[in-house]
């Protein structure tokens, strides 16, 4: 994934520090521990079906704007 950042040095330093902290995982006694695998049967998954949005979306979005909510703190 690509992401544009300003102050890349600052991000680099902080991320490096956090990765340094993650090295603590090297000390954990996890020998013989298996990586857990989650299994879900296919029939337990949510149906993969198309649910139509019944309202005219663009019109609705125009209607919603500045009507249902007001956002006093937005600037």
């Amino acid at each position, binding site marked *: *994934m*690509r*992401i*544009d*950042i*300003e102050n890349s040095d600052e*991000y680099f330093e*902080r*991320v490096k*520090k*956090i*990765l340094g*902290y*993650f090295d*603590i*995982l*090297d*000390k*954990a*006694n*996890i020998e013989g*521990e*298996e*990586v*857990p695998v*989650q299994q*879900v049967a296919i029939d*337990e*998954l*949510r*149906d993969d079906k198309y649910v139509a*949005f019944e*309202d005219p*979306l663009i019109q*609705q*979005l125009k209607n*919603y*704007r500045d*009507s*249902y*909510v*007001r*956002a*006093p*703190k*937005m*600037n």
Partner: protein
Amino acid sequence: MSLGISAIEYINGIKNGTITAEEFVAKTIEHIKKVEPKLHAFISLNDNALEQARAIDKKVKAGQNVGAFYGMPISIKDNICIKGGKTTCASRMLENYTAPYDATVVSKLNAQDAVIIGKTNLDEFAMGVATEFSAFGPSKNPWDTEYVPGGSSGGSAVSVAGLESILSLGSDTGGSVRNPASFCSIVGLKPTYGLVSRYGLVSYANSIEQIGPMGRRVEDVALLLNHIAGKDPHDPTTIDNKNQDYLSGIDSGISGKKIGIIKEMSSGSGLDSTVASVFKNSISAFEKLGAKIEEVSLDMVEYTVATYYVLTTAEAGSNLSRYDNLRYGYDLDSEGYEFKSYISKARRNFGPEVTRRMILGGFVPSAGFAGKYLLKALKVKSKLKKQIEAAFSKCDFLISPTVPVLPFKFGEKIDDPLAMYLADINTVTANLTGVPAISVPYEVKNGLPVGIQIHANLLQEKQLLQAAYALQNTTKLPEVPL
């Protein structure tokens, strides 16, 4: 009519005619207008709240069936979708996003005649412990506005503690309900993973996050849990709880129960001395209630913060990649950009903490590093689960301070992400293992609240709430200085 009444008192007041929903909601809105410039709990408010309350009063007067909340004002964290309302996740990226559907929890609250009073502030995309990372400015702790309210559900906690709503819904990925509950002296519950539907909760780390109820009283939280828990066809991770009633028998007490003190969360240099002293008092209270106390060691706790951040950043990196200004985004002219550079430019609208976690989330699962970070974290998680199971084979509950430190001042930790991450050390275990945990406000020391955390085994929310209720009744807290 006091805005500080409990949810149960509110319902009784409506039933016996001493208050109306309209009066209460009107007074709440008036109060919000007064305190919001100081507290900033909300990102947006529901302009139709009063109208909705009036409609519920009409139903009450006409003797029609009325839902369990009787027009009670409830606030919702702004990463939970409400159809037609803005759901910003406190991010510039979603500043104008209008949700086209209701989250399951919102549908359930609407079906029970709750009045959703507004959407509350949070750290951007629920990543943080102070709401300092909200793109719309931080919320303030009502106990002392120079201090953070905790996070990421800080706005929810402030709205409840500041009497701007009776109940609230937050989301808890690594303590985001319990941490602000502790910092603001309210009750916050992280339910068993799968007990509450996540449908309509904007994803951050799906494998461990849960929507959780927040209130001023344990019984209020039990009431809210009654109406949001259960199987949802929209979320295949949900569990059928057989419509369990968490409120009935809440006063059963905990005499004879075994309580384990988690050694790694209750001692050591990271624990503030004031928090340690309050925790000691809570242990005495549990003993007086007839519980048997013993110490329990979970040696994997030392590695949980690193494990939590490796796993959640990896999931966040994947989940947040959808904010590319093609599927979700904001008004940014594409003229002059090559396709990929347009997307990376658009992502500039993420704040610093989200950006940091996306960078980490791209790195820790990458080829050549997954073995060092991701796979080790998954193994720690697996071992921690076994240790928790073993602990619950001996004990009914496990306890610790909710947060090892007192609420801190704004700016104190914002430049040191690692120090901020370490504030999560007592809360992430419940998320990594899926067990329920609750924060109960216990004392206010020098004007700053301290909460006690109780864990129970998977799906033992009923017993957990009984223990929390018993503890709550051993302490009397001061009123919030609004």
